[in-house]
């Protein structure tokens, strides 16, 4: 029984230009103590998906489908009921944590806040616990009383993580947690996340455009394109035997030490218009293997194994010659 089951989730935004279909029918699940990497280019809908799980979307967003978390469909909860889930059972660390900390409140107070809100502690208890949490993530006691602007990017990110896990949530959503950090700090943050999974059984959905980053720390990977999941599987399966052309192209575009001197292949073309996505397979215009069958394809995720699924006609149905056009 997985911790989180997303069923046919749709997130549409009503704008003056039309309805933007940011997430267009997503099926995904996350188990306990598992780190799932959600990869995709900007505009793929991965961040919107994360925000949808937290229900912190702008006013013009419409959600549809089911988000089953711990047996309950989150989308059926009232605003007040969900306030007790948000920040307590599901927490989020945002992209660019440099700005997700309140500039005029001391760091330890900000970490203490979820404990006061959900943990029933008073201010002193919460602050004490906050200092412990900060120490756990590597922020020393003397820094705990600082204001955000006094800390480095890496430290701020740690604070954001401490803030998110303070209530021992079951699920952490980390949106580009290491962007804008240097490689050393990046590695430290990733190590911290792994530790949290190992020690506390924390499940993580890590969102990033950087597939190589995700492959370092994630147990499973899901690839998203134009609002839909195109491939999902264990790390080994995705990295070693990717089946969807988009995944293959993503992996091929990662610069590698072994291919020094060669140009990294980039994917030609552009993602489809989210207001008017084409019928059929959305990756078709950019796919090297596109053929007539792709025009009728509805995005179904064919099973390659019990854990590995890919949404490509080359996988499901009759075996077809994998010959590029």
């Amino acid at each position, binding site marked *: 029984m997985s911790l989180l089951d997303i069923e046919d989730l749709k997130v549409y935004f009503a704008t003056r230009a039309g309805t933007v279909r940011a997430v267009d029918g997503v099926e995904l699940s996350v188990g306990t103590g598992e780190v799932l990497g959600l990869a995709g280019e900007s505009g793929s809908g991965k961040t919107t998906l994360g925000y949808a799980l937290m229900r*912190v979307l*702008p*006013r013009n967003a419409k959600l549809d489908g089911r988000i089953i978390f711990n047996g309950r469909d989150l989308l059926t909860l009232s605003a007040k009921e969900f306030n007790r889930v948000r920040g307590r059972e599901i927490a989020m660390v945002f992209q660019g944590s440099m700005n997700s900390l309140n500039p005029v409140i001391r760091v330890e107070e900000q970490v203490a806040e979820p404990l006061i809100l959900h943990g029933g502690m008073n201010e002193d208890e919460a602050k004490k616990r906050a200092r412990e949490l900060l120490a756990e993530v590597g922020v020393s006691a003397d820094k705990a009383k600082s204001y955000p602007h006094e800390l480095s990017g890496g430290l701020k990110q740690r604070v954001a993580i401490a803030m998110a896990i303070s209530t021992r949530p079951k699920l952490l959503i980390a949106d580009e947690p290491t962007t804008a950090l240097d490689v050393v700090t990046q590695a430290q943050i990733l190590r911290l996340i792994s530790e949290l999974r190992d020690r506390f059984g924390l499940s993580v959905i890590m969102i990033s455009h950087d597939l190589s980053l995700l492959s370092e720390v994630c147990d499973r990977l899901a690839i998203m394109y134009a609002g839909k999941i195109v491939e999902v599987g264990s790390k080994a399966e995705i990295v070693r035997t990717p089946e969807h052309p988009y995944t293959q192209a993503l992996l091929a575009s990662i610069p590698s030490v072994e291919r020094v001197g060669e140009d990294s292949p980039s994917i030609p073309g552009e993602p489809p218009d989210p207001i008017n996505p084409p019928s059929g397979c959305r990756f078709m215009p950019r796919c090297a293997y596109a053929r007539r069958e792709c025009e009728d394809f509805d995005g179904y995720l064919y099973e390659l194994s019990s854990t590995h699924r890919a949404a490509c006609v080359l996988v499901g149905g009759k075996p077809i010659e994998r010959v590029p056009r």
Partner: protein
Amino acid sequence: MSARSTLKKYLSNRKGSLGLAILVVLVFMALLAPVISPYKPTQIDPTAILQPPSAKHLLGTNEVGEDILSLIIWGSRISLLVGFLATFVAVLVGTAVGVVAGYMSGLTDEALMRTTDFFLVIPAVVLAIVVAAVLGNTLLNVILIIGLLSWPSTARVVRSATLVYKQMPFVEASKCAGAGTAYILRKHILPNVLPLVYANTSLTIANSIFTQAALVFLGVGDINDISWGQILHFAYASGAITAGDYWYAVPPGLMIVVAVLGFALTGYALDEVLNPKLKAGVVFESA
């Protein structure tokens, strides 16, 4: 953004349409004053002093028997004229100062900004009163004084915009191609900065109308020309206020309110249309 699409966007903005409608009405009132005014404003009728509104005088008469409605209509001319001309001066000086300060940086910038801050600190109305008292209260003086006291806000806006645009790649490219400062300012900086100035201009006009009315009311402005402030000045000075002659006191002030609102709404709408803020912000579910 083309002029046509901007206009369309502006008109779909409620504030803007209302503001513009008000302005159009006022400008027409001023231009057509000789035609729509029921009497000549200086026409005295000694038999009908301080009369309340009647069929003969829709807004009543003042203490020398002049028709107040006519005075109001004619008053729009000076009130609006001073607003426009003073703002013209202010925007001219302000844009020049702002562009130079923003582009030159360094000491020039510091010096110009200190001067700008100085004028923002000293209450403009007070300074205007004192200067007008000392230099004489002709119409020209009033226009110049208000203009020279209003340029700082334009300068600030222009300077911020210049600072942003001077760092843009196309300016760099232009410099590499050997363009001189004057050329860059004229071709690259100014056209991009001007849209931001429009909103500020509208607000400056609103302010100028207000300041002129204040100066005239206090007797340091040009009290010989008919303007709304001038009407109020005589309403107060003649004791009509304490006598409770509301028809004398209410209309001129109301006109000022309407005019200021018109320009302010237009200014805010222009700001929204021309300088869009990109972020939408989070929503609260209970809302």
